[in-house]
């Protein structure tokens, strides 16, 4: 399917486990982003990437790792999950020169 897809949609993991959230887009957008949505905080940027092999921290990067070896994929890894990382995670992408980001459906992650 064309567009931006996230997997899994739902994930339950235990504290201390490593978990990777996947994001794939078919538009060849240069910019990709990871946001988390929490009650009382809205959407906060975790990491973003301007192109393959170029990533940068956002507002709340601690505890997360990203990579971007291919333009279309931007996985987000929680190296040692904590309960505070229970959240809904959204991946987004934009064309270079555009500011209108397109979002995936989200991944609801619960850390127990």
């Amino acid at each position, binding site marked *: 399917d064309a567009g931006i897809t996230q997997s899994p949609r739902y994930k339950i993991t235990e504290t201390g486990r490593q978990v990777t959230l996947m994001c794939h887009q078919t538009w060849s957008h240069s*910019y990709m*982003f990871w*946001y988390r949505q929490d009650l*009382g*905080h*809205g*959407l*906060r*940027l975790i990491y*973003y990437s*301007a192109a393959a092999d170029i990533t*940068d921290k*956002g*507002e709340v990067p601690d505890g997360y790792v990203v990579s971007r070896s291919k333009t279309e994929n931007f996985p987000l890894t929680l190296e040692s999950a904590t309960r505070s990382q229970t959240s809904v995670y*959204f991946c*987004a992408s*934009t064309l*270079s*020169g*555009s*500011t*209108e*980001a*397109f*979002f*995936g*459906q*989200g991944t609801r992650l619960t850390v127990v």
Partner: protein
Amino acid sequence: DQQVKQNSPSLSVQEGRISILNCDYTNSMFDYFLWYKKYPAEGPTFLISISSIKDKNEDGRFTVFLNKSAKHLSLHIVPSQPGDSAVYFCAASARGFYGGSQGNLIFGKGTKLSVKP
């Protein structure tokens, strides 16, 4: 410190009437503003945007107004429909001289709009 503020967590409006959602920002470097709409269990979807060189942008039932001196923008929905019931996020970006994405959007906390039939 919050750079983009949506001070009303919720708003309830009668079908057919006007919905006005407000947003304030503090960073004078912001030069592009967007509104996103979000339904439960879905990702946000882009609704309308405005550049800081304009004070109004209209798209069908949706109009965004920007008051730069007050660092305030608002989204007007006329007439409101039950299908407009969703959470609306205001977002801002500092695109800079060259335009385009400068890496991220700063979002407000959102306003939940309920349009009653």
